[in-house]
């Protein structure tokens, strides 16, 4: 069950890749090179990577407006993702989706989503399809603490629990729904408590500890594949950046942000790998250098890719 060295290094690499991707996007956005809105995943990398490292070919994920990390963790190409965020034709969605709608259905990535909480019933449906087709696949839905107040959360958990769907609801509790702190937006602290209402297991884990997330996801997926139904996993985490790029973050203190930065999931995992004699400093440095190169190439790729032709404006509205 425990990942081997190669798998752990791959997890470390993916977390770094997300971090580098997001920080690069932040830079490019501030320089005006990226249009629209971007919501970055910096600080939450352990959740996407801890969960997706357990998934196979038939499995689906549904994501959020903060979806870049989920796509990368699922194995999406950073070139095509970057091109999409630039609005270019070589992006995953030909530049028609952008950051908030980036998707790669061929990888089982059912898309980022501009509507908070929209992914829950979608994932329940994808899980239903896997169950119906008896292919052993599961579906994972990532969503935030804010989404746990939406009707979609309650309806999807209820449906999934009565139909015993192979779905794992992964709540990334980063303590804020946009500007509303959790204590202001719900009368509970542990979203895992809500599992009780649907008669399913609910667990709360340290979302900044990739191995904690990995273990919980592994067990929930095992349970789902065995036909025992859905699980709610709450990962306590924090976004280092604002809700969106350009957010002045007036609703939280610098001190709080700095406290959480000390709990950086990538640093923590790197330190563990070293202290536990799993990897050497040289190995980790080499990964870091490769990742930087990969993201540099992704930006290059995105820049070189052309914008979609205006003739693309009305294609893909319908299937023929």
């Amino acid at each position, binding site marked *: 069950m*425990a990942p081997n060295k190669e798998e752990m290094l791959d997890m470390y690499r993916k977390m770094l890749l997300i971090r580098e991707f997001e920080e690069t996007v932040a830079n490019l956005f501030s320089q005006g090179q990226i249009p629209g809105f971007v919501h970055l995943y910096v600080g939450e990398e352990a959740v996407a990577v801890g969960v997706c490292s357990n998934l196979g070919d038939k499995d689906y994920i549904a994501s959020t407006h903060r979806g870049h990390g989920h796509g990368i963790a699922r194995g999406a190409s950073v070139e095509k993702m970057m091109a999409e965020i630039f609005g270019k034709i070589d992006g995953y969605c030909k530049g028609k989706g952008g950051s908030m709608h980036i998707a790669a259905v061929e990888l089982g990535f059912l898309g980022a989503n501009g509507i908070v909480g929209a992914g829950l019933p979608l994932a329940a449906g994808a899980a239903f399809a896997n169950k119906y087709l008896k292919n052993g696949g599961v579906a994972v839905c990532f969503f935030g603490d804010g989404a746990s107040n939406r009707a979609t959360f309650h309806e999807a958990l209820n449906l999934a629990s009565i139909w015993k769907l192979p779905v794992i609801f992964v709540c990334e509790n980063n303590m804020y729904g946009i500007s509303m702190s959790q204590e202001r937006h719900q009368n*509970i*602290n*542990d979203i895992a408590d809500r599992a009780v209402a649907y008669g399913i297991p609910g667990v*709360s*884990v340290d979302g900044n500890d990739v191995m904690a997330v990995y273990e919980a996801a592994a067990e929930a997926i095992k349970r789902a594949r065995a036909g025992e139904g859905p*699980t709610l996993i709450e990962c306590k985490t924090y976004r280092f950046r604002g809700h969106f790029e350009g957010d002045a973050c007036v609703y939280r203190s610098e001190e709080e942000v700095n406290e959480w930065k000390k709990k950086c999931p990538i640093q923590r995992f790197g330190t563990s790998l070293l*202290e536990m004699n799993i990897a050497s400093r040289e190995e980790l440095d080499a990964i870091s250098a490769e990742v930087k190169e990969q993201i540099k190439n992704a930006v290059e790729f995105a820049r070189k890719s052309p914008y979609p032709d205006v003739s693309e404006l009305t294609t893909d509205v319908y299937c023929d």
Partner: protein
Amino acid sequence: MSVGIIANPASGKDIRRLVAHATVFDNNEKANLIRRILLGLDSLGVRRVWFMPDYFGFYQRVLDSLAGRCRLALEARLLDMKINASQDDSRRAAEMMAAAGVSCIITLGGDGTNRVVAKGAGNIPLLPVSTGTNNVFPVMVEGTVAGLAAGLLATGAVEPEEALQRTKMLVIYINGRPADIALIDAVVLADRFTGSRAVWDASKIRQIAATRGSTACIGIASVVGGLRHIGPAEPCGMHVIVGSPTGDAAVSVRAAIGPGLIKRVPVVAYHLLQPGQRIQVLESPCVIALDGERELRINAGDSAEIELSMEGPWVVDIDRTLAAAAARGVFREHRERPAGNK
């Protein structure tokens, strides 16, 4: 005449809800429990109750919920401390309560919560109420009753020697220096990460050190209990060397290592631990689980030892306390007869 309350908002939600069959203990239910504790304390005239601040806000919630129906005579106060939503909050709160001179600290949590509180409480007794998963140290008790017992001690209606019992503990040394404690068990695991913290994979267990052994418990203490019962007051503990699942251990013990999780644990050897006796941790690198939670990482090249100590935290024995009070007539009232009526 004061009492402390430390409620762990994080207890009762770990991965054992998934890998075992534990139930979620939601925080609103813990708040209900605290409300009943306060009413118990108040009824005996306890003057002041100190609360640890926490991210769920038990203090404010409990007081708000009591504001309408019952006016408390006691004064509830929040410790002036910054919280990090980590277990260290509980340790520091216990230190502050001890400094404030509380008669006892009522804890709401599991074994893990009490382990941390014990680190800060010094000689202040604990009254541990179970709201966790593996609960050997805390007891399942109605909040009102817990409040009454703490109140009897705080108001002096019952003497400490009637109410208190000293428990054992294990001290973990890393490279010769004390690093941490466990109240019930310390388990050496062939693992590299603390991960989701709980212990459910019996095949990773290499050594067990325990202060108690009882098959009436959930958790590793039940493995020990399967070999020999060791009571909370008995002046010994146990050390078990666990075999690999495929190895040729002559004995295996069937034990409830988690709620609904009954496993066979192969035993290579076991012996009683005497007070002050230290055992060597044989695996490195490894992870040591304390009271059911993977807690300490022993890095490659570090050495670790575990010692049985008889100087664990003092605990309020609820049954004995209430019985002593009843024997003294604390709960009894005599109505005065009208004059002239013999």
